[in-house]
């Protein structure tokens, strides 16, 4: 059984190394009885797959997903470099 100290590491490795996710930018923070996932990804499908993979591999872990979808709008400003 995975102990709590290893759990966050195992989840981060799963999200990076599993072909369906390949995400290195997801944070995992522990609260009393749950893990909170943070960070941003490029699509809702990727966010949903992250939660699905964690639930499939760690069915006893309660997760809360705060992962956002990175906005992709055009900029409205320019920075002058000097």
């Amino acid at each position: 059984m995975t102990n709590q100290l290893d759990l966050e590491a195992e989840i981060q490795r799963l999200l990076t190394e599993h072909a369906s996710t390949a995400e290195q930018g997801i944070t995992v923070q522990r609260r009393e009885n749950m893990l909170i996932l943070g960070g941003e990804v490029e699509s809702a499908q990727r966010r949903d797959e992250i939660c699905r993979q964690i639930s499939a591999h760690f069915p006893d872990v309660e997760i809360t997903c705060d992962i956002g979808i990175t906005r992709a709008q055009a900029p409205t400003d320019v920075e002058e470099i000097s």
Partner: protein
Amino acid sequence: MIRVAAVGDVHVDKDVVGRYRPALDQLSEVADALLIAGDLTRHGTVDEARCFTQEFGGLGVPVVVVLGNHDHQSDQQDAVAEVITDAGITVLEGTSTVLELNGHRLGVAGVKGFGGGFAGACASNFGEQEMKAFVNTTEVIAERLQSALQEADCDALVALTHYAPVPETLNGEPLEIYPFLGCYQLGRAIDSAPTMLALHGHAHHGSERGRTPGGVPVRNVAHPVIKQAYNVYQLLSAETAADLVGV
């Protein structure tokens, strides 16, 4: 005046095609070139590279990229670079290109870069073969960036990497993983030439702004950091473009 748009870590696959396009269709109105700081794809496959060229090709301005660590994941980085090059996009790896823009020559020198850490907390070329190979990789790549920067004959010089050249733009990332996010040798290479701006990605939780020890402005343009399709930087002019608000 030269206006350069930049973004990194776009991680294109089928599910992303079309997301950037509305903003990219406006790009030629606000920028003269687009530089992309690596992690063009999710797993570095040829199919994903084709998705990338579908999304970022045909913009009406030159596009220059470096690959990132994700683009190496499937060990198909040469094929990925070939697909992107065939689409008319310039791929840099220890090389430079000079673009003629608005009567000015914009030089861009690029490498993927590598980890190793920063002053006071960096890996050394000592001990196990694996560690020496790690540090040697870092140093060889940085030396190639230095040569590419120094050989570019241009009016404005930009360094483009995936890994970070300074720790300031990693602020927000866990300190423990800094050695996997960049190395001081890239900053040293950037300072060895008259570099005007250094752009990198890779650090999704990092910060946008920093400077090299020599004072070169560094910008982390990872998509989750800039939170828009691309940033625009203006070089070689005191004037701000009329259609954008100066910041």
